[in-house]
């Protein structure tokens, strides 16, 4: 049977199989890594066949598609290590947000794409944190905001309101001496609280900020190594969080 299924991979890639065969092949591909790899290659090949059919779409299509997209909810990403729903913080002023350096291969590639950077250096702490970062990046309600920082570099914030978390990618800020460090702040109407201090002298990092509460923006300041209890103004960046 499996040999028979295997001969259907070519037709399957061309969508030239019937419904039952399609199901059969797709199940087979989940069980046979080698076949899945071959199928993926042939998919890329077959997609090239559409190079020769490219045509100018009708003028009205763009507006209709964009309009429809605006009113269409996006699907949830495929379950990445499901977590129990986290309760909203009851007393947000008391709870200190935790932050970590986090780096996952896929997550960082995505974050780097947002931030327009390559080679962000960060420390991998655990797969749990990688997963947390990936979960934020893949959240259906994740929103991206960024700002060019005073003095150079860029701060990108990918925040998910439902998760109450944000991934902050700081890249190529102005160079610091080893006795200085960049610090992140969660700022709301009542003031600001530290969201973490980067390692002394570091000008790039990817961080997970947990517990956004009602913060309006994420700010970055330059502080003495180890950080300060209140920010040294002016901030070099203040990225608004989605309302």
């Amino acid at each position, binding site marked *: 049977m499996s040999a028979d299924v295997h001969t259907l991979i070519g037709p399957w890639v061309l969508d*030239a199989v019937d419904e039952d065969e399609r199901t059969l092949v797709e199940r087979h591909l989940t069980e046979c890594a080698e076949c899945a790899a071959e199928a993926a290659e042939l998919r890329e090949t*077959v997609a090239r066949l559409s190079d020769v059919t490219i045509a100018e*779409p009708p003028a009205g299509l*763009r507006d209709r598609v964009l309009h429809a*997209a605006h009113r269409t909810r996006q*699907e949830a990403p*495929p379950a990445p290590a499901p977590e129990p729903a986290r309760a909203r913080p009851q007393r947000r002023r008391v709870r200190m947000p935790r932050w970590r350096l986090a780096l996952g291969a896929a997550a960082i590639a995505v974050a780097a794409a947002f931030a327009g950077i390559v080679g962000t250096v960060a420390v991998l702490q655990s797969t749990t944190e990688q997963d947390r970062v990936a979960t934020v990046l893949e*959240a259906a309600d994740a929103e991206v905001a960024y700002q060019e920082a005073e003095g150079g570099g860029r701060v990108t914030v990918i925040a998910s309101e439902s998760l109450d978390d944000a991934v902050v990618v700081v890249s190529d800020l102005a160079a610091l001496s080893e006795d200085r460090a960049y610090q992140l702040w969660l700022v709301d109407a009542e003031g600001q609280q530290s969201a973490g201090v980067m390692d002394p002298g570091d000008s790039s990092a990817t961080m997970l900020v947990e517990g956004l509460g009602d913060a309006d923006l994420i700010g970055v300041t330059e502080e003495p190594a180890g950080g300060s209890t209140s920010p040294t103004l002016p901030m070099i960046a203040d990225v608004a969080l989605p309302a």
Partner: protein
Amino acid sequence: MTSDQGSGAARREQPRLTAVPGEAADTPEQLLHRTALGDEDAFAQLYDLTAPRVYGLCLRVLRDPAQAEEVAQEVLIEVWRTATRFDERRGSASAWVATIAHRRAVDRVRSAQASGDRERRAAAADAPTEEGYDAVAEAAAVRLEHRQVRRCLKTLTELQRQAVTLAYYGGHTYRQVAVLLEAAVPTVKSRIRDGLVKLRDCLEVAR
């Protein structure tokens, strides 16, 4: 990015929100990732990059501009809706989009066949679109780098090439292809696979 023809010029002159002035254009993968985060500007850019491929493929398979437009719209909204499921490790963004487009177009062909929708098919055949279609295809032929695909298709044997193109552009199943080519079903299956492998090697799709 799709053409410098006058018909599309007005649209393209509209200011477009660009993430970072002066930076290299975003790749489809980057745009798709941002689309997955609900970024409508990224999706608009992704539309500009992929809609000609989606519409053109639907038009080739369905042959009817009205249906092609309808299906292309479904496809592009599906791209928006399921961008969250795109996995770069499993293939390129343009292949992902082309795959959705081809499958939707073929599904439309099959459902029309299944319901014996003569009317629709007759309408498609009658529509004075063949000229328009050829003109569009011709323009596309001039302006797009597809010589490589054409050249590689020529490296296939006649039966391989016919089997692959009847299935892909014609939207036929391999069994239907066997009937059309008066060949045995197992032969067609293996010719399709051999043809695709040869095409892959010629196009040097390395992953």
